[in-house]
């Protein structure tokens, strides 16, 4: 008869069994942490994960993850792990670590620890089953928590960057008294178009501008919604007493505007930025005179 070494007394409930088993396996995993951690780090390197990090860095993070992992197994609480996962993500995302790498290393640790449990309890199938019943839900929860934490952090970073790009890319620049330039680069979506209009109108009011040159050389194409929005921007600027000159329309955009039947009488356009500024200066009554001396 096989020695029922680790079988708990029959009077325990399944939940109590799980708790006892978990404590026991956590203790074992803790005792052997150095060996198991090394195994895990080696698997990470062999799997060519976390290439962006040095071996020392991987080892340092592995230590923290390993200890957090055991803590979750023991207490069942993922809060500390969630906090750690967020913190870890904040640090490694700028290093270029990808989602599949993060999930990969957590799953590798799961495998390393599972194999350890197989080797320890494998001789007794009934006990092994109980051990796995206790271990697997906790291990899965850990993988999910870390994965979700990482993805959420990435999404937060992306949102932040999008916001920064949006703010950066619609500067309103005073270049002369009463003359503003609004250089637009990149794709304009309806949200950006709206932001553009708001910034332009505020710029007109704050700088008391009479003419605005809106240059769209850097805009590859626009759709009907955005085209109408541009027309609205021109009209709104007029209500504030400013004239908008649109410059730098690509052939594609010119085609779009004609096709959708935009009222071109409402739009003052000039081919390029240089022409636009010259026209603006003319409207404002400036005259640019060349002096005979050339600066050297």
């Amino acid at each position: 008869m096989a020695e029922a070494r680790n079988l708990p007394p029959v009077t325990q409930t399944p939940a109590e069994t799980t708790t006892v088993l978990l404590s026991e396996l956590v203790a074992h995993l803790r005792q052997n942490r150095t060996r198991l951690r090394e195994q895990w780090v080696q698997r990470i390197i062999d799997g060519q994960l976390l290439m962006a990090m040095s071996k020392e860095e991987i080892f340092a993070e592995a230590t923290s993850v390993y200890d957090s992992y055991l803590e979750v197994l023991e207490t069942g609480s993922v809060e500390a792990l969630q906090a750690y996962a967020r913190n870890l993500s904040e640090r490694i995302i700028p290093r270029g670590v990808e989602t599949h790498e993060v999930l990969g290393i957590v799953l590798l640790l799961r495998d390393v620890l599972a194999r350890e449990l197989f080797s320890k309890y494998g001789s007794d199938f009934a006990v092994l089953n109980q051990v796995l019943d206790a271990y697997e839900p906790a291990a899965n929860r850990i993988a999910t928590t870390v994965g979700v934490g990482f993805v959420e952090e990435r999404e937060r970073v992306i949102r932040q960057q999008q916001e920064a790009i949006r703010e950066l890319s619609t500067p309103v620049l005073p270049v002369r008294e009463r003359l503003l330039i609004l250089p637009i680069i990149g794709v304009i979506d309806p949200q950006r178009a709206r932001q553009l209009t708001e910034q332009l109108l505020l710029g007109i009011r704050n700088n008391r501008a009479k003419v605005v040159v809106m240059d769209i050389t850097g805009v590859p194409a626009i759709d009907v919604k955005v085209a109408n929005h541009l027309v609205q921007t021109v009209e709104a600027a007029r209500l504030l007493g400013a004239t908008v000159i649109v410059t730098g329309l690509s052939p594609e955009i010119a085609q779009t505007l004609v096709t959708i039947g935009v009222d071109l009488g409402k739009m003052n356009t000039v081919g390029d930025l240089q022409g636009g500024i010259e026209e603006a200066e003319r409207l404002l009554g400036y005259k640019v005179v060349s002096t005979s001396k050339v600066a050297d």
Partner: protein
Amino acid sequence: MAVPILKQGGYLIATVQAALTDRDLAELRDSLIERVGRYRSRGVIVDVTALDVMDSYAARTLRDLAYMAKLRGAQTVIVGIQPDVAFAMVQLGLMLEGVATALDLEEGLAFLDQQFETSQQGRV
């Protein structure tokens, strides 16, 4: 609530202080037109800086004012439309077609002066 109307040389200046009812707007329009005739004004400035909302009735009334003033020999300029009001107006299609606009009172006066080529010193 009546809108104060000031006479400055050949110009009339009406400064809207707060939200106007439809009736106030109609009264303003009628007062201005009456005064244009009485004083033989050449210019009308309506300052809407204090208006934080412009609905279709207001826009239509201001447009009517401008056209009526023109028929009686005066050029109208609407000044002080705020950025967010302008934004809302264009979205609703309230364009104030054919009505001159300027950023503020100073710009409005400059515009009228330019129209009539009156020198700064010459203006009473």
